[in-house]
């Protein structure tokens, strides 16, 4: 397996009394209410909830793309005020630059940091190997399948060696088979990279399969219903979904979302 030095130690993510209020057409809508979370370094933390529960908003706040109307988010002991290269954001599909081929998309974050092409080339190639896209370096996004595009997305986020990886429903647009193989790949890559991961999904089985802990959000306004530790041994093969323990988690979370 590819050995990977992230260069940055995984960091704690904490959220204190976070609140987010949007005003649309003169009406105030509460998207997030009193969110409190502490995510340990290296943890795979999953947030699951119905659409409209503010989970994407929370992720954008952690990335520094949105600013909360109350409370605060911290990386380590520093408050989040804007984007930073200690965090890598994996967007949903089609967030790739169509005029850049695979290599240049993966190198994008490094390029913005002013790292020279020659220095970025080695790191970029490592990331392409890590996500299994060797041989596709010169392909443009429109020539790739949805699953491959998400691999590029992931490689681009990992290339800047983030301490924290923020993933916004990255597999939602993929078909079931591709999604399963991407989940396996992500677990392998996460183990290799050793970063803290905050992963958002609306699929309960995906949350249980991937997460060390799963936070269940209520519908608007988003609130933490419960945080559940998933005590399933790793690695977790696909067959774990048939186990009674897994099914018990599914039942419990379904009831919470209800």
């Amino acid at each position, binding site marked *: 397996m590819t050995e990977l030095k992230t260069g940055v130690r995984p960091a704690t993510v904490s959220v204190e009394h976070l609140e987010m209020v949007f005003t649309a057409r003169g009406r105030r809508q509460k998207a997030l209410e009193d969110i409190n979370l502490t995510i340990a370094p290296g943890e795979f933390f999953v947030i699951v909830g119905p659409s409209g529960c503010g989970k994407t908003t929370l992720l954008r706040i952690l990335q520094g793309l949105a600013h909360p109307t109350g409370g605060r988010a911290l990386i380590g002991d520093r408050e989040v005020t804007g984007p930073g290269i200690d965090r890598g954001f994996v967007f949903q599909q089609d967030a790739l630059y169509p005029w850049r081929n695979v290599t240049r998309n993966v190198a994008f974050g490094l*390029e913005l940091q002013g790292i020279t092409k020659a220095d970025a080339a080695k790191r970029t190639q490592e990331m392409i190997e890590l996500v299994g896209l060797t041989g596709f370096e010169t392909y443009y996004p429109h020539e790739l399948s949805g699953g491959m595009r998400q691999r590029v997305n992931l490689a681009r986020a990992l290339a800047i060696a983030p301490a924290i990886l923020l993933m916004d429903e990255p597999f939602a647009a993929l078909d079931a088979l591709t999604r399963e193989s991407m989940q396996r790949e992500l677990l392998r890559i996460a183990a290799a990279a050793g970063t803290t991961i905050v992963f958002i999904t609306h699929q309960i089985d995906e949350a249980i399969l991937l997460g060390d802990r799963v936070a269940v959000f209520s519908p608007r306004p988003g609130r933490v219903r419960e945080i559940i530790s998933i005590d399933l041994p790793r690695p977790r093969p696909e067959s774990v979904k048939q186990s009674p323990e897994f099914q018990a988690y599914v039942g419990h979370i379904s009831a919470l979302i209800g």
Partner: protein
Amino acid sequence: MEKPNQPAGSLPPVAAEADSSEVAVPRNWRGITRPLTTLVIILIGWEVIGRYVLTNPLFFAPLSEVAEAAVQLWSTGELQKHIWVSFSELMQGTFAAIVFGIAAGVGIGISQRVRDYTEIYITALYATPLVAVTPLLILWLGIGVFSKAAVVFLTAVFPILINTAAGIRSTDPLLIEVARSFCGTRSQIITKVMLPAAVPFMLTGIRLGIGRGIVGVVVGELFGARAGLGYLIFTSGQTFEVPALFVGILALAAMGVGLTFAAQLVERYALRWRRSTEMDGS
């Protein structure tokens, strides 16, 4: 396989494509043989009409006499001079229009304030047929190359500017957000996201601009010039030299076709990242 046996001057074997076409006439040849067929028909029709229908030499000339006049004008070097003058007027004006149009288009595209100050006037100028100011430009700049380059600039700059601004503004907000999340600065977002996203729009604007620019050259030369294809057409008309008049028109047509073709090559290269989009269906 039967092509070499065809007598010279006959139509290409269009009907033969049914069975043997895959081997004998590859698909891309048809892209050449079919328009050539049309051209041959038109040229023959021209000759016939000139000889037997519109026989008054003050109004029309058969193709053979036009060809004769072209050879005559070429041998004295006069035709080359006219082509060169018109071409350099067009190139100077277009080049200036591209540089200024893209720069101003980016400025208008990225800044709401600049847009507030200028947008309505740019729209007004785009809608105005600016060839109308040609007499004024000739008064200011004389009857040399510069006045015509200025006409080309004025007619070509607005499509380029407006398309560039539209391209910048229609950049996918998600792609801008990606750059922001990777700590991109404002200038990096402009150069690495907005500009590349606007390239297809710029190329469309340039193609439109060249088309308008050719009109600008001819109109400018009609108003006042010492040389150029518009000048050739104008003076030939004044002296009833219809064959020479047609030589000027045909040379303009050839210039237009050549430039359009060159623009297509540039577009195909610059937009290679989205070629075959429709074929791949993903």
